[in-house]
């Protein structure tokens, strides 16, 4: 073999991570990904895959808690339909279900490179016809910006809408120079999450070193900080590995001997003998990195998951609070709570006020009557006696009477419309049985 690599930093893409993990498992080489956030990668199926960043399981829990905080019940998910997008939305589904909310509509967009603006338009138009006005957007930058642009064009970035985006957006906002105003206009009022890293002297020093290195052209994002800490993790783990007598040696993989005659020379791949010991040292690592205390929990994920909650307004963005697994939603950084006993009561959850899409400071209701919704169907008995209470106007489908007057007056007092239709029941010769009518409704028989 060419170079004796004992560990690999990466991959970045969750999609690539799924396929490469089989190589990692076989050759016993730990892969340490600082950016693959698909929650299903934590599975026991991938023992040699270590995630050195936070899983989207926690990001989706954070989003579910934000939705619960604002008392919305149904949300729509627009996502890129690959491993990262699909599994992230699945985690959101679970997180919402435990809070008795749900995703009422999932709009997946193909991850292919040939997706055009009109493909995205077809998807977003369907979303506009739905009842919910709370939308969670989970994609990559290229597709994400296209969705926001199309939504803005369709007038869906205005009053009444709520957009919550995952951290693909903050990665771009943190790294790029200020985006053009047209682009910023398409995301006014959006709530975004970002992986939280505690403030520290080391982080500040690294930040100024970064600015000197990049000349201010490339901003520092949380994934870069995790990548930096991953190198230190590897260094510490290899150090311990040597201290425990580990050696770097490789053995031929007997399973590959049968794969001969191929130009790829697959039989050249060898198993790293020290793999299990190095993996053990990686999992036992404990040091303070730029992202804070760097340590794995027994479930092989980084400790202390936390996110910043950002509101995009004007030409930039503003932090409205934090979420952490330990303390929930707060306006103080999560580090202030770790020394205190956890308090997850709903009265303890706080966020600063948000400026919603349409420059709205009132919390949007989060739903409307859908264009393709069902009318409220009201069964009305065709009575023979006491016709002053309710009776059908002959020759029409309308009804009159005291009951109808009370109903119409009550509906007029509501702050919203109630589209309804009266459905007559009965043969007109005798009073219909109410018991029969209710039974027909419960068994789902149409009264037409």
């Amino acid at each position: 073999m060419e170079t004796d690599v004992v560990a690999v930093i990466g991959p970045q893409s969750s999609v690539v991570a799924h396929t490469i993990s089989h190589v990692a498992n076989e050759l016993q080489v730990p892969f340490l990904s600082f950016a693959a956030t698909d929650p299903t990668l934590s599975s026991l199926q991938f023992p040699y895959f270590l995630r050195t960043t936070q899983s989207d399981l926690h990001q989706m829990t954070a989003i579910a808690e934000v939705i619960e905080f604002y008392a919305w019940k149904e949300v729509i998910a627009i996502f890129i339909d690959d491993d990262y997008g699909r599994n992230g939305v699945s985690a959101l589904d679970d997180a919402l279900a435990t809070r008795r909310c749900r995703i009422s509509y999932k709009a997946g967009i193909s991850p292919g490179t040939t997706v055009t603006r009109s493909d995205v338009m077809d998807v977003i138009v369907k979303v506009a016809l739905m009842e919910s006005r709370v939308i969670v957007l989970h994609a990559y930058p290229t597709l994400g910006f296209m969705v926001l642009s199309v939504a803005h064009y369709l007038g869906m970035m205005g009053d009444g809408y709520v957009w919550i985006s995952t951290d693909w957006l903050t990665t771009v906002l943190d790294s790029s120079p200020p985006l053009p105003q047209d682009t910023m206009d398409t995301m006014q009022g959006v709530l975004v999450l970002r992986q939280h890293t505690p403030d520290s002297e080391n982080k500040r020093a690294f930040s100024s070193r970064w600015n000197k290195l990049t000349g201010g052209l490339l901003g520092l994002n949380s994934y870069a900080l995790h990548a930096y800490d991953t190198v230190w993790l590897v260094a510490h783990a290899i150090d311990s590995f040597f201290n425990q007598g580990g050696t770097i040696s490789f053995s031929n993989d007997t399973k590959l001997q049968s794969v001969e005659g191929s130009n790829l020379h697959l039989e050249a791949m060898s198993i790293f003998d020290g793999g299990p010991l190095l993996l053990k040292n990686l999992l036992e690592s404990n040091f303070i990195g730029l992202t804070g205390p760097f340590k794995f929990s027994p479930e092989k994920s980084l400790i202390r998951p936390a996110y910043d909650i950002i509101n995009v307004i004007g030409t930039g963005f503003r932090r409205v609070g934090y979420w952490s697994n330990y303390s929930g939603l707060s306006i103080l950084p999560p580090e202030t709570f770790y020394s205190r006993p956890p308090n997850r009561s709903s009265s303890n959850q706080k966020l600063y006020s948000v400026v919603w899409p349409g420059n709205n400071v009132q919390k949007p209701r989060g739903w409307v009557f859908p264009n393709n919704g069902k009318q409220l169907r009201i069964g009305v008995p065709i009575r023979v006696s006491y016709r002053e209470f309710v009776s059908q106007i002959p020759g029409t489908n309308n009804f009159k009477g005291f009951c109808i007057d009370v109903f119409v007056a009550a509906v007029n007092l509501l702050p919203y419309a109630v589209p309804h239709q009266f459905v007559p029941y009965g043969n007109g010769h005798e009073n219909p049985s109410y018991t029969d009518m209710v039974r027909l409704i419960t068994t789902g028989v149409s009264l037409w």
Partner: protein
Amino acid sequence: MLFKHAKILLCHSSRMNVVWIIVSCLVCFGVCSVGLSGNGTSRPAVVNVGAIFTFDSTIGRAAKIAIQEAVKDVNSNSSVLQGTKLVVQLQNSNCSGFLGMVGGTLFSVRFL
């Protein structure tokens, strides 16, 4: 005569002393070196680690610089991996699942 003999004896003994010193030094070194290698086997001069991510992406551009800076910091730090140089071999992948799989497999063949 005795004095001459004594002189010769003295010369002899000093030479013996020198030889004795040299031999004892060699033995000491021998013991020391055995002691060094016996304590957790001799570490290699270089340890190789791979890195695979998409260079031309928002995350990748920043990650590349961060990883390179971290490698510099690790190698200039005397308390971690003393005497061993950490080398990170960077390999560009692609967000496409197919190209990532192909690239990843080829990377494995080359590097693992």
